[in-house]
């Protein structure tokens, strides 16, 4: 872990965007309908743009001359700080949509709060990102509602996806020393405030989608400190292979 909690925080925000973008980008050419294909590609593009802002800031703070690209392509799995939720595999469309919704529903209130950060750089990155994410949330919310409250088959698939992924949502709202340090300076919100908003939003969204969040689930932790599920290694290997095979290759 970095001694500077702001670097850790920027890596977490940036790695969430990067890993989710990599996953979502993989749907390009494979989504069941062309509109969703295009939507996923656009969401991936926004997230890559946001990754550049966050990782660029992390690299500057670190002061070792590492660019956003260096951080994305030359770190190993244990150095990634993304949450476990975004590294869960694409498997099928229902899971990809549910993963997106569970993340967007956190990302939006988090970024909204960060627009008021005492750290001017964090505030401006959040201001830029939150507008894009409001479109992501609108889409993922709409789709889980329609598919959850859809045919028996679509409902079953969305419920299965929720049952599988819900255990990875707790981490996003469980503060550790990094979150506490930033909250103490007013640079980031108290995660309990974000959680209150998330819980209320989820309650009404899931009810409308006729889906039920599992109860008494053990919430998995670790991604924020670099302890990941086995899924991330495979993803990173694919994402980084070109830089690994041809070090220093430029586009």
């Amino acid at each position: 872990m970095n001694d500077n909690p702001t670097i850790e925080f920027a890596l977490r925000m940036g790695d969430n965007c990067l890993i989710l973008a990599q996953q979502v980008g993989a749907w390009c050419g494979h989504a069941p309908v062309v509109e969703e294909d295009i939507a996923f590609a656009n969401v991936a593009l926004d997230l890559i743009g946001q990754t550049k802002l966050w990782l660029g800031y992390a690299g500057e703070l670190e002061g070792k001359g590492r660019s956003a690209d260096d951080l994305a392509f030359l770190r190993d799995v244990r150095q990634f700080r993304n949450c476990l939720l975004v590294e869960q595999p694409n498997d099928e469309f229902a899971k990809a949509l549910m993963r997106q919704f569970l993340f967007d529903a956190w990302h939006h209130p988090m970024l909204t709060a960060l627009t008021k950060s005492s750290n001017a750089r964090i505030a401006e990155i959040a201001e830029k990102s939150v507008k894009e994410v409001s479109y992501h949330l609108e889409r993922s919310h709409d789709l889980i509602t329609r598919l959850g409250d859809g045919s028996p088959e679509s409902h079953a698939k969305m419920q299965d996806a929720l049952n599988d992924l819900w255990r990875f949502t707790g981490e996003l709202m469980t503060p550790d020393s990094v979150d506490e340090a930033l909250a103490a300076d007013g640079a980031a919100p108290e995660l309990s405030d974000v959680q209150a908003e998330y819980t209320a939003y989820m309650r009404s969204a899931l009810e409308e989608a006729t889906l039920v969040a599992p109860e008494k689930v053990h919430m998995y932790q670790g991604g924020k400190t670099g302890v990941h599920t086995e899924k991330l290694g495979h993803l990173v290997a694919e994402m980084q292979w070109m830089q690994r095979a041809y070090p220093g290759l430029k586009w």
Partner: protein
Amino acid sequence: MSALATKPSTDDVWGWLEEVPDPEIPAVSVVDLGIVRDVEWKGGTLVVTVTPTYSGCPATSFISRAIEMAIRARGIDDLKMETRISPAWTTDWISDAGREKLREFGIAPPVGGAASCAGALKVPPVVTCPRCGSTHTERVSQFGSTPCKASYRCLDCLEPFDYFKSF
């Protein structure tokens, strides 16, 4: 190219930039879209500040380069391009002329101010078909051919069209 004897005014520079088209939507200029935020002389250096539309828009670096080339072609060598992300770019900055050019090009311009920017589950705006003028249109997808556009179709003339979404 050698340096100019006299410094062109910033108004001149704005005039040149009005001729630099957006690479994705060549009907409008980078000034019409509100991407150029500032043009100023700092001593002998011309500083041009641009604001990206969407953070991942692949056209952003292309636009900066197009602006740089347009200015260098006028003989200005001492040029600095700066990027500013706050305040964040908004469709409110698209000029009236730019909106009209979008419509003529077949893209419905943004409806309402940035306040009507999606947000979770707000009612989609009433978008007028750029071809026949009907308001009897429907959204096909919130996302379209570029990050800034949504896909719509007209229920009267039946043509599909792009809508430049409020942002």
